[in-house]
């Protein structure tokens, strides 16, 4: 994308004249290749006039429903510059539930931005220029015929190649039916040659059925047929490459590859950026960030995990080697409660992305032995002759303190505009997560909260926060004050943050002896469970 591109200026010159211009990655350029030929001056001026009104059809995979829009917005921010994420507008096609895979999106940029977003995303199946939609094929024909010729003809030229794909959601269309549908498109004057392997332009006919409320699928009141030209599509090939089952070194809480990539997208991982994970474990989050070109750093309190792994060929370093990624800048053993950064060091990381230990599958640990905490026995002193070989015991780390330390660390160590992305567990009350309980910090603005339901009892929510306020002396003082409070009332905090008992204690019995949670009452439609 060059600064002289007229469209670029129209969208951004007014608000952010010095926004960093990002190069078009090779993959995006290749995928957007079909669009490249229409970038002649007269056509791009046509598009500029229309671009403002351009709503794309954004089709998602039917997974991680809560994560889909925030991912697109984060990628808009990444490729479109500061503020672009907030400028993304959404609406639903008529009669579509918000959990439907079909969304309409208006992006603060031209078609190349749409292609860049789609190509890097995990959850966008494709972004399409919508030529028409209808509840029947007759209505579709009418709509496509009414779509402006100057938008259609550049993609139908005799020297181009094309392909038509018939796709469906919630129903199966037989091969014969697909053929019939394609043949019915005679009202579109395709002049080019068909190329199924590497077409210049891909056209999609997508159909949803008029099922009401079907098992696992969002309720759609009316059958809808869409016809559109593909602008960009996700590359999910990287998921089989990075899947955990073929990774050499994993631990019990290694982050699933798809989720790790989503987290890296939320953290805007990019070449030249520095991403830090204070609970690095086997490095599964940093692997995803490194795949997108970011420099990485990680720390963990357990030296066996970060240094030893399972041997010389099975450790954090081998995970990066396996995918031919640059190894982390540093991996160190340190405690998030007592971070070892030098005085005065701040604003170093562009993103902190992590999955803090919250005590359901793995509990947090921090420095300080048990004897120090009980307080009834005199604090333990390591004898001088044993200092070198001493293995320090650690104390349990309450979730509240862990999150407080994380926010404080992020406030200090993130650059302005940097992102903190982390999972936060939420006990579900009456089947919903309560947003009022998400942690807050004066330096941060919450930009996305994406729930993933893990059980009847609890969810984890991926929080994405942007640093909007500077790390001042007051912020530092307040944090130190709170730090002392955690230390003095350790037991109270351990009790309060005890998610384990909330998740695993036996279900409450109602008066009639039936369990409070009735498993049969679980609705068939699973929404965020997907």
């Amino acid at each position: 994308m060059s600064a002289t591109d007229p469209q670029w200026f129209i969208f951004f010159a007014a608000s952010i004249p010095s926004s960093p211009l990002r190069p078009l990655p090779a993959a995006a350029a290749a995928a957007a290749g079909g669009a490249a030929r229409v970038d002649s001056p007269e056509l791009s001026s046509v598009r500029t006039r229309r671009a403002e009104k351009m709503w794309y059809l954004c089709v998602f995979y039917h997974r991680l429903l809560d994560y889909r829009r925030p991912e697109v917005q984060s990628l808009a921010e990444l490729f479109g510059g500061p503020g672009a994420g907030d400028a993304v507008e959404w609406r639903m096609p008529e009669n579509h539930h918000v959990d439907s895979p079909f969304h309409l999106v208006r992006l603060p940029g031209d078609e190349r931005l749409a292609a860049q977003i789609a190509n890097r995303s995990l959850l966008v199946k494709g972004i399409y220029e919508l030529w028409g939609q209808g509840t029947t094929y007759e209505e579709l024909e009418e709509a496509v015929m009414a779509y402006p010729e100057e938008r259609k003809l550049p993609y139908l030229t005799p020297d181009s190649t094309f392909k038509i794909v018939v796709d469906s959601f919630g129903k199966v269309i037989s091969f014969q039916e697909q053929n019939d549908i394609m043949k019915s498109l005679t009202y579109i004057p395709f002049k080019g040659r068909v190329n199924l392997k590497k077409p210049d332009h891909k056209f999609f006919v997508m159909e949803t059925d008029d099922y009401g409320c079907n098992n696992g699928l969002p309720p759609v009141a009316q059958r809808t047929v869409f016809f559109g030209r593909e602008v960009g599509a996700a590359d999910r090939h990287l998921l089989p490459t990075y899947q955990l089952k073929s990774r050499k070194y994993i631990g019990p809480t290694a982050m699933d590859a798809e989720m790790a990539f989503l987290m890296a997208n939320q953290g805007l991982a990019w070449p030249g950026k520095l991403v830090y994970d204070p609970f690095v474990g086997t490095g599964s989050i940093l692997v995803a960030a490194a795949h997108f070109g970011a420099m990485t750093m990680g720390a963990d309190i357990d030296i066996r995990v970060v240094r030893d792994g399972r041997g010389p060929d099975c450790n954090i370093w081998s995970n990066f080697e396996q995918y031919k990624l640059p190894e982390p800048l540093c991996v160190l053993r340190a405690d998030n409660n007592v971070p070892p950064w030098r005085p005065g060091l701040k604003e170093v990381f562009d993103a902190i992305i992590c999955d803090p230990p919250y005590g359901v599958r793995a509990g947090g640990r921090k420095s300080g032995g048990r004897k120090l905490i009980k307080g009834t026995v005199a604090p333990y002193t390591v004898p001088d002759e044993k200092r070198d070989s001493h293995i320090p015991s650690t104390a349990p780390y309450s979730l509240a303190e862990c999150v407080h330390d994380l926010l404080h660390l992020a406030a200090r160590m993130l650059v302005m505009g940097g992102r903190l992305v982390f999972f936060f567990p939420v006990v579900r009350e009456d089947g919903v997560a309560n947003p009022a309980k998400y942690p807050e910090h004066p330096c941060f603005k919450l930009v996305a909260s994406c729930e993933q339901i893990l059980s009847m009892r609890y969810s984890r929510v991926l929080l994405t926060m942007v640093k909007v306020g500077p790390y001042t002396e007051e912020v530092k003082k307040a944090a130190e004050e709170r730090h002392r409070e955690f230390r003095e009332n350790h037991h109270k905090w351990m009790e309060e943050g005890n998610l384990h008992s909330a998740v695993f204690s036996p279900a409450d019995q109602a008066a009639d002896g039936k369990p409070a949670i009735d498993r049969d009452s679980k609705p068939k439609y699973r929404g965020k469970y997907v």
Partner: protein
Amino acid sequence: MRLLTHNMLASNARGAVTGYPLKLQVVKWSTKEAEPNPEFLRGMLPKIDWPALVAATQSLGLPELLPEAAPTDAELSAEGAAADEGSALRRLHRALLEIHIEEGTLVCPDTDRCFPISRGVPNMLLHEDEVRN
């Protein structure tokens, strides 16, 4: 452990005043080539404590590697800097990213507490009686 990490770390044991810079006692170090990333280095430069970095290279026996004064942003962005072996950019790249301390010790300047570096991983964890209250 790269010298970039050394530049960022401090001792936070009880009794340490600033705990910085940590004295570097090296038993074994090596050089691993890395892809130069000028953009990253330019962003990192203002965060680097230059005297501490120079002292670290000197303790490795590389007094010629870095000049007394930190390079300017203009020097790092100079044309051809990435290709020129002796340029300020390449020297900084080598110092920060290509030198790896495999085995050694980081010593707190205030308390003489030793933090071991083994197999490239510095162990900054405190003993239970060293945590500040």
